[in-house]
């Protein structure tokens, strides 16, 4: 039976939601082999959860120095597995995932595609390029083609499977390894993860201050159960943290609902959000380019509108 490898995304709080999306994608190729790279015991800890969301096999590639290493253990594990028993490899998209995918393509002399939004059993993949202005289909070559999948693009469908645990021993650190001398995990708040959220409320320069992000943007996101995003301008001005940046140099999001507050709509921002199913923009400047992609454009004062909207949303619920 054919099979595919999935690189499991996990953190201190367990298996990340995106892993079920990756396993859903991988199932198109056959048996799902979930590869856990981490500290000793990690595979055992996550195996049941991974089985429940569709892993036939859970392959634990564990090392005691995992904390001091970065990316290379994952590349080593997947390249060893795919060399011994070739098959497609599915990885979650972000800079780390893209680098792992790229390195694997180099080691395995396989094709790699990024920003994948769907995979097919014939090993072709659908992806979007040029800031989502073009839909493309790619044929991916090699015995172990590599797919770096956009987070949130493939809805997870969990079909419980055996989740049988196996172990793979990793080679020690070598000349390719950079050392991690310190790590501070990102503080994840109560809100959904930006790229996974069904609703994103984003603010731009027009929000005016960090305080306004807290008092105006965040309450609307919370009322709608959504994530907060920010433009590069807002980040550069110190209004909001860089990890929430949406656009060409930040995250690409395609939520069901995107509410743009005080965002003019530079093309670099639009390229990161224009595939949202519904876009609502609030801006005082009626000529702002954001209105050209908004399903409804509200020309008005966001500081009057948003608090009223928060009240209205709370009432509806």
């Amino acid at each position, binding site marked *: 039976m054919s099979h595919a490898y999935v690189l499991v995304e996990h*953190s201190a709080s367990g298996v990340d939601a995106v892993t079920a999306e990756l396993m859903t994608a991988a199932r198109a190729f056959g048996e799902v082999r979930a590869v856990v790279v981490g500290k000793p015991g990690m595979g055992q800890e996550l195996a049941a959860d991974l089985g429940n969301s569709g892993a036939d096999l859970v392959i634990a590639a564990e090392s005691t120095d995992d904390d001091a290493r970065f990316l290379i253990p994952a590349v080593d594990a997947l390249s060893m597995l795919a060399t011994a028993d070739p098959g497609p490899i599915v990885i979650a998209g972000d800079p780390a995932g893209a*680098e792992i995918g790229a390195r694997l393509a180099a080691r395995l002399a396989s094709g790699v595609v990024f920003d994948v939004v769907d995979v097919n059993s014939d090993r072709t993949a659908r992806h979007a390029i040029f800031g989502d202005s073009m839909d493309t289909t790619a044929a991916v070559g090699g015995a172990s083609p590599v797919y770096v999948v956009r987070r949130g693009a493939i809805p997870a469908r969990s079909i419980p499977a055996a989740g049988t645990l196996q172990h793979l021993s990793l080679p020690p650190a070598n000349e390719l390894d*950079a050392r991690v001398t310190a790590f501070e995990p990102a503080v994840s708040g109560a809100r959904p993860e930006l790229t996974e959220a069904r609703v994103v409320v984003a603010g731009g320069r027009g929000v005016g201050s960090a305080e306004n992000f807290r008092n105006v943007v965040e309450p609307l996101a919370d009322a709608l159960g959504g994530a907060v995003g920010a433009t590069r301008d807002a980040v550069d001005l110190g209004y909001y943290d860089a990890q929430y940046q949406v656009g060409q140099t930040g995250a690409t999001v395609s939520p069901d609902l995107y509410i743009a507050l005080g965002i003019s709509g530079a093309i670099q921002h639009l390229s990161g959000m224009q595939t949202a199913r519904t876009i609502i923009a609030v801006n005082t400047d009626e000529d702002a380019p954001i209105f050209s992609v908004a399903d409804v454009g509200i020309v008005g004062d966001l500081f009057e509108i948003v608090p009223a909207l928060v009240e*209205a949303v709370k009432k509806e619920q």
Partner: protein
Amino acid sequence: MPAIVALVKSVPDTWSYKTLSENFTLDRGAVDSVLDEINEFSVEQALRLRDAHPDRGFRVIALTMGPADAEEALRRAIAMGADDAVHVVDPSLAGSDVLATAWVLHRALETIPDVAIVVAGSASSDGAAGAVPGILAEYRRVPALTAVRDVSLDGSVVRATREDRSGLYRLEAALPAVVSVTDKAAKPRFPNFKGLLAAKKHAITSLDLAAIGVDPTQVGGTHAASAVTAAIPRPAREGGPKIQVGNDGVGGAQAITKLLSERGLL
């Protein structure tokens, strides 16, 4: 003299309309090319590393692979302060994928003596997710500190800070190394008059595939390990109605909740 090599890329201006030619590669004739903005940050870091260690005698060399007009990206790097520039240009390179691109850059780096650090941008604005720095590190068998916001050098150890969705990493590695820099790094300098003049006059080293010992059959579109087989432009999104509400917060809120309930988003 040891070299710090800044990889630069000439990209379509973000403001130009991008389209694909018949073989599904970027129609470069249809766009204006500029130095990719991310490379202003990476060149800046290369210059800072050089200037922070005058005793080491580093030379900053800008390197690009691309068609004839990619030379503009190199001239911009020289204008910022790079000491020299190398351009790999060959008709066989058109349509090269990330593996071929990284291989060609690796071979071109082999023509430069004593490369201590290769500094790249974390991801180009027109391409593939920042794949080249990691692949280059694989080919060169050196460590890579990728997507970092600062870089410093302490003897033979390079240190950098990476910030991504998982958190903040302090990284270090022994030289030689590959580094890729994000746009969270220090603001790039503007070229001064002297720099612009130097850039105009500078003789750029041009290398074809034979000069770097790469067989043309190893590169280009026909050799690519992945190929786009179909491309459909998405219909441009059409803006919906604009509703003027001014300071009428409740009116604006009602217009929004109406749409939200129509679309089942409440």
